[in-house]
C-alpha cells in the first residue's frame, strides 16, 4: 500500500472523472485537474468565486462548478481549455446544480424550490420544471441515464413526474399515496422506482416505470419511520433503514420482507467483532499493521448513545446503508452506536462482522470491484475490511492529516482520502490484493 503526498483542497471538493483518468480538486476559486497516475496538473481553471459544488459530466469531458452564493454555475471543458460557459440564475438564487446524465444539460434548482431550470449546452435553450418538491431526495436519474424521476408537490398532494432525459419529454405523471413524500430512487435496472414517505410514517411504495403501483410496504405505524433506503446493485434487494434501529430487506419478486437486521447492543458470541483498542503509539511501517485491531468473539457490549427525545432529528436509527459491488454484503451504521459499522451477509441473511472503532465513523465506502470496505473515523488511520479480516493503516504523512472522508477510484485500485483541507491518494497493491 502506497500513499501519495498531500494536496490541497477546500470544502472536500475532490472528484474523480467517471472514466478514472482525471482527478479534479477545488482550491478556493481554482479548479485543478490532474492525471490520476502521474498526479501532474493538466489544467487549471479559475472560477469567479469560491466553489461550493463540483461535478464531472458523465463523459468526463466537462466539469461543473457551482457558486451558490452568487447563483452562478461555470462549466469547463477538458478538451478545449479555452472554452467556457457561465450560467447565471439571476436574482432568484440557486440551491443545487447538477448534470443531466447525457452531460449536455445542467439542472439548477432555484431557491425556495421554485423551479428546476434545465440549461442546454447544445443550443443554449432553457426550460423550466415547476413545483419541484423540497425533500430528502426529490430527484433521481435512472442508472442508464434515460429517465429522471422528480417529486412534485401540488395542492398538498405528492406527484411524481418521469421525464425522458433525451428531450425532457414528460413520460408519466402520477399521484402517490404518500402523506409527505421524502425521496425517490430508481432501481439499478431502471424499471422500479422506490418512493418513501416522511419519517413520521413508515411507508415504501414501489412503482413501475410506467407508473403502476407494484407494491406497498409498511413495517409498523405510529412511530418514526424510514431514514433512508438503498438498492442492491443487482436490483434484487431493497434495504430500508428506519428509526427503530433495524434494516429490512425486501425482495424484488414479491416485494415482501425477507430479512430483518437488528442492531443490538449485545452481540452474541458467535459473531465476529473487530474492536479497535487504544494502545501506545505503535511503530507503523509502510506495510499493513493489524496490531491495533483485536478480534473479540465473546459476548460484547457496545457503547450506546442515548438520543435526546426533545430535539428534532434524533440521533437514533440506521442512517447509512451501502451494498457491496457484488450485492453480497451490506454495510450499515446505526446513529446511536456511532462507533460501529455492521456488515451483513446477504447470502446467509445474517450478521457477518461488526467493526467497533474508537471514534465515531465518519464515512465508509465499498470498493467498486471487490467486497472490500474502507472506512474512516476522523483520525489518521484508514480502516479496511474484507471477509478475510480487518486492517488499519496509519496514513504515513507529515503533520496532522485526519481522514474525514474517502472515495474509491472506479478500478478499486486506489483510494482518495480527504482531510479538512488536504487530500491524499492511497494505492492498493493490486498484485496481491485479496480476490473476492
Amino acid at each position, binding site marked *: 500500500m502506497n500513499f501519495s503526498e498531500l494536496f490541497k483542497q477546500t470544502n472536500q471538493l475532490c472528484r474523480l472523472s467517471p472514466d478514472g483518468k482525471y482527478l479534479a480538486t477545488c482550491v478556493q476559486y481554482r479548479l485543478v485537474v490532474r492525471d490520476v497516475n502521474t498526479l501532474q496538473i493538466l489544467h487549471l481553471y479559475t472560477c469567479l468565486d469560491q466553489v461550493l459544488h463540483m461535478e464531472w459530466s458523465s463523459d468526463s469531458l466537462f466539469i461543473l462548478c457551482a457558486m451558490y452564493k452568487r447563483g452562478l454555475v461555470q462549466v469547463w471543458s477538458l478538451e478545449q481549455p479555452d472554452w467556457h460557459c457561465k450560467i447565471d440564475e439571476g436574482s432568484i438564487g440557486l440551491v443545487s446544480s447538477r448534470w443531466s446524465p447525457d452531460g449536455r444539460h445542467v439542472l439548477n434548482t432555484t431557491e425556495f424550490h421554485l423551479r428546476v431550470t434545465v440549461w442546454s449546452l447544445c443550443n443554449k435553450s432553457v426550460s423550466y420544471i415547476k413545483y419541484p418538491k423540497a425533500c430528502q431526495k426529490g430527484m433521481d436519474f435512472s442508472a442508464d441515464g434515460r429517465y429522471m424521476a422528480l417529486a412534485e408537490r401540488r395542492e398538498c398532494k405528492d406527484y411524481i413526474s418521469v421525464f425522458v432525459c433525451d428531450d425532457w*419529454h414528460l413520460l408519466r405523471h402520477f399521484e402517490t399515496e404518500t402523506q409527505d413524500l421524502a425521496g425517490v430512487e430508481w432501481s439499478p435496472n431502471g424499471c422500479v422506482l422506490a418512493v418513501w414517505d416522511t419519517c413520521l410514517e413508515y411507508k415504501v411504495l414501489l412503482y413501475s416505470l410506467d407508473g403502476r403501483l407494484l407494491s406497498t410496504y409498511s413495517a409498523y405505524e405510529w412511530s418514526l419511520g424510514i431514514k433512508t433506503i438503498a438498492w442492491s446493485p443487482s436490483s434484487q434487494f431493497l434495504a430500508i433503514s428506519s428509526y427503530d434501529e433495524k434494516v429490512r430487506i425486501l425482495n424484488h419478486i414479491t416485494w415482501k420482507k425477507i430479512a430483518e437486521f437488528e442492531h443490538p447492543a449485545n452481540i452474541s458470541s458467535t459473531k465476529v467483532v473487530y474492536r479497535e483498542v487504544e494502545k501506545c503509539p505503535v511503530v507503523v511501517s509502510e506495510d499493513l499493521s493489524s496490531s491495533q485491531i483485536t478480534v473479540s468473539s465473546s459476548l460484547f457490549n457496545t457503547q450506546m448513545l442515548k438520543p435526546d427525545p426533545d430535539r428534532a432529528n434524533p440521533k437514533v436509527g440506521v442512517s447509512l446503508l451501502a451494498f457491496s459491488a457484488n450485492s453480497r454484503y451490506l454495510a450499515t451504521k446505526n446513529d446511536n452506536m456511532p462507533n460501529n459499522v455492521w456488515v451483513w451477509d446477504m447470502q446467509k441473511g445474517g450478521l457477518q462482522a461488526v467493526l467497533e472503532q474508537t471514534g465515531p465513523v465518519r464515512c465508509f465506502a465499498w470498493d467498486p470491484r471487490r467486497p472490500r470496505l474502507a472506512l474512516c473515523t476522523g483520525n489518521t488511520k484508514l480502516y479496511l475490511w474484507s471477509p478475510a479480516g480487518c486492517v488499519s493503516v496509519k496514513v504515513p504523512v507529515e503533520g496532522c492529516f485526519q481522514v474525514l472522508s474517502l472515495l474509491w477510484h472506479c478500478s478499486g485500485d486506489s483510494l482518495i482520502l480527504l482531510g479538512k483541507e488536504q487530500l491524499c491518494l492511497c494505492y492498493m497493491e493490486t498484485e496481491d490484493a485479496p480476490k473476492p
Partner: protein
Amino acid sequence: MGDQCGMTMTEHTLDAKEISSISGITMSPSRQYGQTTLHSSLSLHKSYSGFSPFCSEHSVTQCISYINQEACSLGLGTVCIDLCLGGEGLKAVPVLNLLYELLQINRRHQKAAEELETQQMKNSSDMEHLQHSHSRLKDQLEHTRRENSGLHEGERQLQLKIKTLQRCLKSEKEEVQKLQSIISSRASQYNHDAKRKERECAKLKERLNQLLVEKRDKKLAIEVSNPVGRSDGKRGLWKTGKMEARHEGEMYKALLNDYEARQRALMVENTELKKVLQQMKRDMVSILSPKKPQARGEASDDSLEQVCSDGEEEMCEASRECVEQSCEQAREKLTNSIRQQWRRLKCHMERLDSQASLVSAPDREGEGEELISRQVHEEEVLRMRLELQQCRDFIQTQQQLWQQLSSPCDDETAALLSGCYTLEEKERLKEEWRLFQEQKRNFEKERKSFTEAAIRLGHEKKAFEDDRATWLKNQFLTMTPFVDRKRPATLESHSTASSGAEAKMISTPVPPAKSVSYSAFTTPKTGSACVPSTVDLYRTLRLIPESSLRSQGRRGSRQDFSSLSRDLTKPRLHNGTADCSLLSLLKDVESPT
C-alpha cells in the same frame, strides 16, 4: 411391690387361700360399711383405752365377745373365736383366720384407697390441664377476635383506598380521553394549518414565478463560447407526436426487457429446481424399490404401500413427463406423486424406527439384521472387541507397572521413587498417622473409662440390692400386727409415700437388667461420666461406616447414648475395623518408601 408382698404372703398361707377367697366374696357388699365401722370402733376404742392394751388377762372373754361381735358386724360371722376348754388360752386357728381376714380387708382397702388417690390425682391433673387449655383457648379466642377486628379494619381501609383509587382511575381516564381529544383536534388543526400554509406558499411561489417571468430578469442568462454537440452525436429532434410514441415504445421495451430478463432468471431457477426434484425422486425411488419384495413378504397389512409400489414405475414415468409438460397440467400429478412418495418414505422411516427399537431388545436379533447389514454389524463388533482387548492390555500393563512401583525393589529405584513423592504427600501421610495415633489413644482411654464405669455400676447394684433387702425387711415388719398396733397412725402416710415413690419409678424407664454393662451405660449417672470420652468417640467413629454416624446425628442425645453403648458393647468388632484401617494406613505409609 404390693404384688410382691402378696406373693410372699400367699406362699406363707397357702392353706388359707380358700377361706380368704370366700371371705372376699362375702365381704364385698358390705365393704364400705364395715370399713367405717371398724375405723370408728377402733378410734372409739383408742379414745378410751389410750395406751393401755386392748385385752388383759381378766377381760379375755369380753374381748373375745367384742371381737366376735365386731366380726359379725363386719360380715365375718362364720368365724368365731372361742375360748379353749380350759379358759386359759385362745383357739389359735379361728384367731389366725380372723386375723388373716382382717389383714385381707385391710389390704384391699389400702389398695382401693391408693387407686382412688391416683384416680384423684389423675383427675385433678386432668382438671388442671383442662383449665389450662380452657384459659389458653380463651386467650386464643380473644386474640383471634382482636385479629379479626384488626383485619376488618384493614379491609375497610383497603376498600376505602380502592374506592379512592377507582375514583382516581376514573378521573385519569377522563383526563386521557380529554387529552386524546385535544391531541386529535390539535392534529387536525395543525394539518389544516399546514395545508393552508402550503397553499399560501404555493400561491407565493406562483406569484414569484409570474413576477420573474414578467420582469424578464436580465441576469438570468447562459453564456456559452460555442455550443457543443450532443453526446450521442445526433442532432436534437423536434417534439412531435411521433417522438412521444417512440418514448412510450422505448419505455415499454425497457420494461419488457426487464420482465424477460426476470423470466429468464426464473426459468433458469425453475429448471434447476426441477433438476433437483428429479434427482430427489430418483433417489427416493432407488431407496424404496429394493424394499418392495420384502415389504410384500413381510407386511401383509401394508396393502396401500403395495399398491404404491406397484404404481411406482408409472408414477416415476409420469413425473418425468410432467417436468417436460407445462406447469398447469402437470402440477396436480407432480404434487400427487410427490405426496405419495413422501408418505411411503415416511412409512419406511417409521418402520425403520420400529425395527431399530426392536433391535435394542436382545431376543429380536434376527429382525435387526435387515436394519444393519450383518457384515457391518460384525465388523463393528470385531472392532469393539479389539478395542476392548486393547483397553484390557492397557489396564494390565498399568497394573503391572503399579505393582512394580509398590513392591519393594532395589535400593536405587526405591531412592529414585522416594524422590518422586512430593514433600506434601509425605506431610499428609504423617498427619494422618498422627491423627490415627490420637484416635487410638482416645479409644483406649474410653475403654478404660467404660470398664471403670462397669465396676462402679457393679458396686452400685450391690448397694441397691442391700438397700432393697433392708427395705423389704422393714416393709415386712410393718405389715405385722405388732407394728400396726404400735404405729397405727403412721401406717397410712407411709403407704402413700411408698406408692408415690413407686409411681415415680414407673414413670422413669426401668433399665432392663440384662447385662451389667448395658444398664450401666443407659443410666444417666454413668452417661455423664463418659461424656468426655464420647467426643473422642465421634472422632473414632470415622472408622465405622458413614451411615451409622449420620443416624446417630439425627437421633436425640438419649438415643445417642444407647446407640453408642450398643456399639461399644461389641468392642472387639470395633477394634477389628480400627485395626484393619490401621493396617491399610500403615501400608499406605510404607508403600511409597
